């Protein structure tokens, strides 16, 4: 079916397709339409959506509901994400499946509320005290919002962790023609609850990264223990250095970067010049490449930003003498590429933070510069 919808609407459709049955959020431009839409969609399905008194309460509701068996979603923008921070730490420590949408807007603090930027890239990576890996997906189109919402719920379920969707104002609030039926969507991972106790006790989590076990549901038939403190596999507080090490090792390594790596590539197998993009800027690159004729240029669009999809990056970086990475921030992802690229290659970091979209001409200029070298 052909629709004329924006990324926020597509994201809601994707979340519902993934089985989202709980939403809590607080109004904030440009993420508010997701709240409004979920407040209509979920009650019509007999499920719950609620506007919290602030972002702290909203994510708190989501964490409680998620551990009670719900597939929970929340949506905000940078200032709200700042308030989510402490509870994201709890969600990582307590291994809570949760999808967090950040419809990014420009700047620290209030910034430019209605202007596009991709300035929360490193923020979501390092958002909690103590560190630990996060999964962050970045749509570059309305279709991606739908598709990545489904992937995000799947990853959240599989790895029992918060998953970020880094949308932005331009993607979230610009309507485009889409036909979501044409997209190939992954199978939905359903929530399973732990039902079998062993020796009268059920593990809250497993520290074995190769076998993810069902969640012990709050209010379920097996008594659950949830804690944000250092704990053993039964959720009991622990001070044992050995157990604490096991827990933290588990949290640090449980996400398999290969399994969550999403990307698109167009260009030669061995590009001489590699453009790496993500988010809305990918479309400026597409436009630039469409309007000129370039040889030896490859374009890698990253849909997964965290964990860094190193295998695919290394594959295309190995042949590239020049790498161009355009970003609507001050080069937040360029440093990740810097550490992976061949040391004798040149990295051109195109940066723009002025409330306007990064124009295709800036890519064209960089490509001209390269061909002159």
């Amino acid at each position: 079916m052909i629709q004329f919808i924006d990324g926020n609407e597509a994201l809601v459709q994707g979340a519902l397709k993934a089985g989202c049955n709980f939403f809590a959020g607080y109004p904030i431009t440009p993420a508010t339409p997701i709240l409004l839409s979920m407040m209509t969609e979920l009650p019509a399905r007999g499920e719950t959506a609620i506007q919290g008194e602030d972002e702290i309460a909203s994510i708190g509701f989501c964490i409680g509901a998620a551990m009670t068996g719900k597939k929970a979603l929340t949506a905000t923008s940078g200032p709200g994400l700042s308030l989510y921070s402490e509870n994201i730490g709890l969600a990582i420590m307590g291994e809570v499946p949760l999808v967090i949408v950040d419809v990014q807007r420009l700047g620290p603090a209030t910034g430019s509320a209605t202007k596009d930027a991709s300035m929360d890239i490193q923020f979501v990576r390092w958002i909690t005290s103590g560190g630990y890996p996060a999964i962050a997906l970045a749509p570059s189109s309305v279709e991606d919002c739908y598709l990545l919402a489904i992937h995000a719920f799947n990853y959240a379920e599989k790895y029992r962790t918060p998953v970020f969707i880094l949308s932005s104002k331009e993607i979230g609030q610009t309507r485009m023609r889409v036909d979501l039926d044409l997209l190939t969507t992954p199978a939905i991972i359903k929530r399973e609850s732990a039902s079998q106790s062993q020796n009268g006790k059920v593990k809250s989590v497993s520290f074995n990264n190769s076998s993810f076990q069902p969640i012990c549901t709050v209010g379920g038939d097996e008594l659950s223990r949830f804690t944000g403190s250092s704990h053993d596999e039964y959720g009991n507080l622990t001070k044992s250095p050995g157990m604490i090490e096991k827990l933290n090792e588990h949290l640090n390594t449980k996400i398999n970067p290969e399994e969550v790596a999403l990307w698109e590539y167009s260009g030669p197998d061995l590009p001489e010049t590699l453009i790496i993009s993500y988010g809305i800027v990918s479309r400026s690159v597409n436009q630039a490449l469409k309007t000129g004729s370039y040889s030896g240029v490859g374009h890698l669009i990253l849909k997964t930003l965290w964990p860094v999809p190193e295998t695919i990056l290394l594959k295309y970086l190995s042949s590239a003498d020049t790498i161009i990475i355009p970003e609507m921030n001050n080069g937040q992802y360029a440093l990740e590429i810097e550490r992976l690229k061949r040391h004798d290659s040149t990295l051109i970091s195109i940066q723009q933070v002025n409330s306007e979209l990064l124009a295709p001409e800036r890519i064209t200029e960089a490509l001209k510069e390269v061909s002159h070298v």
Partner: protein
Amino acid sequence: MSELQTYFKPEVKSLPFCPGCGHTTNLSHLDKAMKLINADPKRTVIVTDIGCVGLSDQYFDVHAFHGLHGRSITYATGIKLANPELNVIVLMGDGGCGIGGNHIVNAARRNVGITVMVFNNFNFGMTGGEHSVTTPFGGLTATTHSGNIEAPLDIIGLAQVCGAGYAARMTTFDKELPSIMAEAMTYKGFAILDIWEFCTAYYSPRNDMDKQSMIAISETHNLPFGILTNRTDRTEYTVALKNQEAKTLKSAPDLNQRFDQLLDQKIELVLSGGAGQKIKSTAAILGQAAILSGGFASQKDDYPITVKTGYSSAEVIISPENIDYTGMTAPNAALILSIEGYNKEKSKLVAMKAGSVIFMEESLPEFETEATVIRKPFEAIAKKIDRNSVALVGLGALLAKTKWLSRESVESAIGISQKAAYLEMSLKALKAGWELESQA
């Protein structure tokens, strides 16, 4: 369910709190209260806050949830919303009432069916006896060496003015505390207990606390004991939520191609006017008409936060091909309907190149541009039909002149997106605009 002897875990021989700490007594009262209501452990959740009280959940054979400081009420609310059948108990200290006071306010306002028990010992016991929001005037703590100069928070008074269904202030020494706890847990709505107790490590020795001084604090600060609120006039939140009528979902229109594609180039159009001129909906009609004609479209709206005043603008791209970049610095078409829209988009209008076209309300100011400017009395024409449909009059004229889209495709888009009440008027406005240019 058979009656349990105790809700404490069988391996629990003693609790970890300091000798004389009220937490030990309170937890034994809670155990008794759960026995009084014959609580099903599998349907009971203890959510603890941070502080010494945060150690409590792990000693009980019920569901246990230990989160962050001050946020326990939010997790409890989420749990209750997700599964209203559960008996959800929050154990928090007076510290949590400071950092998480906002959640007390809002849980009480909602009257969500959770039970909050505040173990109030007038200071932060876990971190070394600092003053809290409930430290009495003059109270000596690690951070109020010369006596507290801040007014103590009346937790129950706060909950009451916020609409809490059940609120009581007790001391840990009250014989009836287990039955009050039981009553709070079975209350259908938000219940909060402010339970005063000793912190034998810090507050009590520093302030020579005994039972008498608790009574003195109660009297001097006007913080009475007893069940202070037990309302029957409020519906519990999850019940109220269920009783609400859900909005009927609208099915999204299918925009499969129905009309011939007339467009042979990408058009970047800026549509701008004032608040109330239906700029957004007209832009959507334009985009939908292009899609119904087998093309592609994008639409981006822009308006000030004070939505009922000032400009309203939309950038619309229509193209026979897929659209990548949605930025626009020098559009090749514009439709400008009011002075607010003109002022907002003037820099774009001036930048427009030769070969591009600007349709504008004839009364607007003159300006220099390479574009072809066509001025028409849109406002006057619209006034005869519907003042607020001026954008459709303009769109009709623009499309009649440029022939980018067929009139039928726009009429079909109007049919899809306009409410029945506006349909006839909208079609009339489009027709008036269309004829204005096709007659010319």
